[in-house]
């Protein structure tokens, strides 16, 4: 009995593409694994909700594309100075914008968000573990970032309730404080 059991030949499932699924999951988890990225992404959603239409949809459309452009620059080896400082500054400025209910023209808001998106994409879009699918990693990364924006917009809708505006401004203050801590760590 032992002989046949040991010698039993199983099908050789030779190419199971193990890295493929891992690439998507890694990309999906990567944006939520760094608090600096999470704070800034949620702040984009908060600010969009605070500014209302059309910023509420323009900022989340604008950010992933420009972030991916930053990631592409990083992948092509284009050096960008002060990446960590830029990411921390995005938390401070976006959080402060929500805190003081800053309402610039739409083009200025979009340009500000796009500017910081480059830093986030450059830092996080290029961190693919070896052996995993670059395409699926990219898809997961973009999807998770978009979901963080949606979460920010969802939180931002508290502005419609009683005391909601104050709560939203307080959330902006939390983001700004978090950004300040990250800036301190980046500079020290």
């Amino acid at each position, binding site marked *: 009995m032992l*002989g*046949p059991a040991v*010698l*039993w*030949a*199983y*099908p*050789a*499932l*030779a*190419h*199971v*593409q193990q890295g*493929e699924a891992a690439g998507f999951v890694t990309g999906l988890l990567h944006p939520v694994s760094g608090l600096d990225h999470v704070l800034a992404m949620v702040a984009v959603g908060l600010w969009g909700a605070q500014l209302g*239409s059309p910023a509420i*949809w323009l900022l*989340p*459309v*604008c950010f*992933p*594309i420009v*972030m*991916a*452009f930053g*990631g*592409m*620059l*990083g*992948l*092509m*080896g284009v050096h960008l100075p002060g990446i960590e400082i830029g990411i921390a500054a995005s938390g401070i400025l976006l959080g402060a914008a929500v805190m003081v209910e800053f309402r610039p023209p739409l083009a200025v808001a979009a340009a500000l968000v796009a500017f910081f998106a480059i830093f986030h994409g450059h830092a996080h*879009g*290029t961190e*693919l573990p070896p052996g995993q699918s*670059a*395409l*699926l990693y*990219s*898809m997961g*990364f*973009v*999807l998770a970032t*978009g979901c963080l924006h949606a979460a920010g917009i969802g939180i931002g809708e508290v502005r419609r309730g009683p005391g909601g505006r104050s709560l939203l401004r307080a959330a902006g203050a939390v983001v700004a404080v978090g950004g300040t801590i990250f800036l301190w760590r980046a500079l020290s």
Partner: protein
Amino acid sequence: MTGRCGRSPAFPGLVAAALATLTSPATARAHLNSTGMGPLYDGVLHFVLSPEDLLPVLGLALLAGLRGGAQSRRVLFVLPVAWLLGGLAGTAAPATGGSPFVSAAWFLLLGGLVAADARVPQGVTVGLAVVLGLSHGWLNGSGMGDFWPAVGALAGLTASVFIVVALGSAPVVSLRAHWARIAVRVAGSWVAASGLLLLGWAARLR
């Protein structure tokens, strides 16, 4: 008649036959996309598991849906037919690997058009469906080997393309709420963003 131990004289032969059966190598299923249910389902599974095929089809479906029922109906039939024709032509060609640069270009083009809610004329949408179907069908068909199993796999692929276009465009055609159409555009921006990152990876890994 039995032997010393009460066993049949044919027993060693039976053992040898059993061992030969048990130790004979089973089929080496070399590709994940083999469902074991035949080439039709292999084709379906290949399409579902290939984002470089799936995403452009979804992008074109969303674009056609944003442009209305007439464009959606044309893409619904033109794209699968072009995919099938390209695949049949591709079976005569040696295996050809797709370029990540081309995939990235499709992501950027179709995702960008959806994100911008571009008012493209019907001829352009149908033209995109023809080029996308022929080129991706060719790539699919070129690696399939024997003709008749390839026809089965291409039938599965074509059916999958039809279903994805139907499921992607029909709900978008019926969208009336402003925010819902914006959600579709956000999805387009994600496709374009994935294309930009893929372009960077392709340049880096080249």
